[in-house]
């Protein structure tokens, strides 16, 4: 059992533990950070969307990007699975198709970090209602 010796110790401990629970705080105000929705219907899972989602979650944390990754049902673009919707704060959501892990890496590095467009954008052909 770790005994906490002083305030610095406690702070270090908190910083290490935070990653286990901060998802609960982040989910309260998703609009302040990069939101990624990974489609996770049967066809998407079959095309590897769970690997894509895991990659996003783990890599965004490693690269210190405040983001929240959620899953959603079928987006309808079954020909281009896995599909993900990326919303950078104050920008319109963009949907990318065929997102495997290399593509996900490119989206993080180029679009999320640099604001550059990358190939694979699917034009949105529907409206969402809240």
């Amino acid at each position: 059992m770790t005994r906490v010796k002083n305030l610095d110790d406690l702070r270090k401990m908190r910083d290490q533990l935070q990653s286990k629970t901060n998802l609960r705080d982040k989910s309260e105000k998703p609009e302040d950070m990069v939101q990624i929705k990974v489609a996770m219907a049967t066809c998407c899972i079959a095309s590897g969307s769970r690997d894509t989602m895991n990659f996003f979650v783990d890599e965004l944390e490693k690269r210190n990007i405040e983001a929240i990754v959620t899953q959603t049902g079928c987006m309808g673009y079954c020909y281009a699975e896995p599909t993900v919707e990326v919303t950078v704060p104050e920008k319109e959501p963009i949907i990318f198709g065929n997102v495997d892990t290399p593509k996900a890496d490119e989206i993080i590095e180029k679009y999320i970090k640099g604001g550059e467009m990358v190939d694979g954008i699917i034009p949105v052909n529907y409206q969402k209602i809240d």
Partner: protein
Amino acid sequence: MAYKMHLLVCGGTGCQASESAALVENLKKELEEQQLDSFAQVVMTGCFGFCEKGPIVKIIPDNTFYTQVSPENAGVIVSEHVAKGRRVDYLLYKNPEDNTPIAESKNMNFYKKQIRIALRNCGIINPENIEEYIARDGYLALGKVFQELGAENTIQVLKDAGLRGRGGAGFPTAIKWELTRKNEADQKYVVCNADEGDPGAFMDRSILEGDPHAVIEAMAINGYCVGATKGLIYIRAEYPLAIQRLKIALNQARNYGLLGNDILGSGFDFDIELRYGAGAFVCGEETALIHSMEGFRGEPTLKPPYPAQSGYLNKPTNVNNVETLANVPVIINKGPEWFNQIGTEKSKGTKVFALAGKVNNVGLIEVPMGITLREVIFEIGGGIKNNKKFKAVQTGGPSGGCLTEKDLDISIDYENLIAAGSMMGSGGMIVMDEDDCMVDVAKYFLDFTVEESCGKCAPCRIGNKRLYELLDKITKGKGTKQDLEILQNLGGVIKDTSLCGLGQSSPNPVLSTMRNFEDEYHAHVHDHKCPSGVCKSLMTYEIIPDNCVGCTACVRVCPVGAITGNKKEVHLISAELCIKCGACMERCKFDAITVN
């Protein structure tokens, strides 16, 4: 690697009674079977407050709020929501206005106006895991007090914040701490008052069940500031879950070196013991509480001497309520200015209320001081059940008073409630509708105080009993005009002459209902009628001859044989034999029976 999804399941007493523990097990099993146990995590948390629709499951990060989830629903939640990201619509909360499902709690009226400070971790962390508390800045305030603030500055911070006691009277917390600090002694004590006795109030229990470390941390801060090395939590033995979680939390804190000797290298030693109460209302009064802890009868004694001078074992003792303590660590972490801007001029911060009675959303809410009763009852509470008309709201439990339609727009704080003839109390809030008889309500509260009076002083012991008898007489239709005068006088005398807060406030429900609903008392006394149809002795069941077809259904259902009449003849109810059970009225298909 961290989990990508968290399934928060309420583990409060209410939800556990609805099998939330089995739900947690089933969810874990399903995750394992569907090989998602490294992806999602099931966390048992404290109370979400929305007890009306428990058990609650909240799914992070998409914030989906499922209500009334049974253990059998675990499969569909995992296979649909966790695996495929599809919300299970039929488990979502339905907006009572138009029956549309609401997926996220922040869009529910129940949560929109709440600010959660004392309940900040309830429903978010696992109360049985100290690491989740530390991850959310737990024990940081304690470290700050040791290293940065020191005792006097900490008390100053609480003073600047304007924190007042949440247990009833609203005494400034910092002044209480300062008084105990100034009294020199070889041993001092800090006590946490978890003897929650108001009928219907359960905020202290929920805090202890949902976030026990917040109270432990605050007590250590309290001990350091007043110079006490021992803390005691006086808790009702009828709160087994809270006791269990406290014990786990205390052991964890000791193992992490956050209780015990030389905490965080400060040289300060502090530990906490639990003391169980037998559930007497009067033991919420601090002197009675101290006597009970000492092993004597739970009876109050005159103040002074105040506990700050001579309390537990005749040593200086600082008693604080659970909710008050739960506010302390946040105030230190976020600063007094942050706390100060919430609330009204004299009442800062938030207050937790246990909203109960005839409202649509029953539960535990934390709202900023200054919110109006109307907002609490009609927005957060979702209005009166079954579209009935609002009649009154009792705040402050049996010590408070009832407020009516005209008081709905006063903003809730300590002073305003007292000015309106009620009080904050510990935060019970019971809403009544047109079907409630106010004389009967007053009688109910008096019955409670008569039961709970310790019997030490005559005004409370004898006076309340006499008040109860008078009310009983009135509800039986035997009251006289003089009785009303006696009620009024006696109530005043009990208030003026009782020894402790219990007697000093026990006539409040009677006096406030007499003031606000004079006509109802008159109807009982002069017309021998109960306008709400509650007082059985004043009711008579009668048959409307025009409607009665003589089917004999009522004759057969009457348990005492009070109805006579042959087939196809108009029946008759004997007023003498009738016990007013209402069975005949329920059975009659022709609306031929009325109550007067």
